[in-house]
């Protein structure tokens, strides 16, 4: 199926273009503007060129936050993707169990992000939380406000709890789309459960899994509200991810210049990653059609 050539189609895209331009390009221009100036107050600003960029790139706290961010997103993907697929495979295929499972799975996804932080704050505190007191009663000292390791464990638990359902929902949708005849053929061939998964289910789920992977990577890379509520970036700086550090710079210290330079670098990193993913996504699409 070839697409029709028609430049008038631009008129259909125009509303989207205008609305996203207002909410993306104009603010981005402001950021660029800030990043090359030193602002003392209204009307008092001098052009400083690439000064803020040099300063920001040399900022070791930014480097730390970046590595922390990659570690966090990497761990998120390594845990959530296999777990999500496993649960999707175990889901019931018909009956009342389907509705029940879907509703339960979607529940964490529709809770505002700072409330997610609140839930886990209440759940893991050593004094009033079930999880926190349980661990402490087992004789293990657990306190996410003082130990960096405990803070990370708590954050990972929260993240896995919060977002694995999205992977499950997408993987489940992919599984449901596989026609029954494939399974019948596999049965006739006497294929094992593993072979069925490896050669039928996994390739058929490739499209939805790519989207799950993309969404999970993007959102874990941009994480802000949950760790902000739960740990506030601490103890020390051990859970200060990129967004938290950026907001600290921009709103907390009101260092507009460095914050703007940081914003642009942050955005460029994401843009580069997005481009790689986009290419992968396109290739997956082509592979399916062929």
């Amino acid at each position, binding site marked *: 199926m070839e*697409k029709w*050539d*028609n430049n008038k*189609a*631009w008129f*259909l*895209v125009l*509303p*989207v*273009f205008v*609305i*996203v331009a207002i*909410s*993306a390009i104009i*603010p981005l221009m*402001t950021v660029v503007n*800030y990043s090359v100036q030193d602002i003392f107050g209204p009307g008092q600003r001098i052009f400083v060129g690439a000064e803020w960029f040099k300063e920001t790139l040399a900022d070791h706290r930014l480097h730390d936050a970046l590595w922390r961010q990659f570690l966090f997103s990497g761990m998120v993907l390594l845990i959530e993707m296999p777990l999500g697929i496993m649960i999707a495979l175990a*889901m019931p295929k018909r009956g009342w169990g*389907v509705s029940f*499972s*879907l*509703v*339960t799975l*979607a*529940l964490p*996804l*529709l*809770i*505002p*992000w*700072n*409330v997610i932080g609140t839930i*886990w704050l*209440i*759940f893991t505190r050593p*004094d*009033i939380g*079930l999880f926190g*007191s349980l661990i402490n009663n087992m004789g293990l000292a657990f306190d996410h406000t003082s130990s960096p390791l405990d803070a990370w464990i708590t954050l990972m638990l929260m993240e896995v*709890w919060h977002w694995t359902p999205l992977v499950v*929902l*997408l993987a*489940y*949708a*992919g599984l*449901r789309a596989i026609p029954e005849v494939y399974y019948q053929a596999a049965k006739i061939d006497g294929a094992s459960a593993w072979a069925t998964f490896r050669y039928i289910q996994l390739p058929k789920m490739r499209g939805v899994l790519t*989207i799950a992977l993309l969404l999970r990577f993007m959102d874990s890379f*941009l994480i*802000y509200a949950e760790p902000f509520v739960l740990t506030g970036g601490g103890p020390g700086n051990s859970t200060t991810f990129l967004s938290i550090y950026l*907001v600290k710079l*921009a*709103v907390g210290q009101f260092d507009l210049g460095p*914050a*703007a330079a940081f*914003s642009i670098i*942050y955005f460029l990193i*994401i*843009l580069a990653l*997005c481009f790689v993913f*986009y290419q992968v996504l396109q290739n997956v699409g082509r592979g399916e059609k062929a």
Partner: protein
Amino acid sequence: MKPKKRTIMLALYFGLLLLPIYWMLNMSLRTNADILSVLTLYPTDPTLVNYIKIFTDASWYSGYINSMIYVAINTTISLSVALPAAYAFSRYRFVGDKQIFFWLLTNRMAPAAVFLLPFFQLYSTFGLIDTHIAVALAHCLFNVPLAVWILEGFMSGIPREIDETAFIDGYSLPRFFITVFIPLIRAGVGVTAFFCFMFSWVELLFARTLTVTDAKPIGAIMTRTISATGLDWGLMAAAGVLTIVPGALVIWFVRNHMAKGFALGRV
């Protein structure tokens, strides 16, 4: 034996999924003094005092109304601009189509923190701070690209012969689009609306920054439980439980369409 093991594993997972939510519900039914004195698995002396406080205080419950207003505005805007655009991307080839599509996707990936300050300044200039429309527009930044992305997937699943036949039959594009095409992809529209609702409802960084009092979302109002005497955990938990309710209602209504909708599109 095997299906049984599978069911047990699944039941365990759902149990763990619900446990933190149950714990918050447990907290919300107890007074703060009770919470801090003993740790019990269920409220021994359940009280609705926290909920009563929220429902009788306008500054509390208006937060829910504010959130729902801007989520509704955002979902409406996102869907109405994304529908024609997604159709263009799925049916036509035009100058810069691939570039525009990629550019839209990058906005879905834009860190909210990057746009925080400029947004505040932009909306201040137009006097839009503390209005529902400001938050709704800000959320368009990530919801419009997502809506275009999902809808394009659904639309590409509809054979182009349907369009051609309709045009030969003398349908104009707008008439064909509204009376024939949209009903064909209604599952996709539903899934897209669900996602727009979800991401606008759960986002708070923009919503908190762009509002002062009149349009403040419930999530931001919750921080008021931190007072001079320390945190009021019971009240905080009750407010948290109430933020889950609208989402849970939406899921309940779309539960049967969800699996179908996901499976149809390339989503």
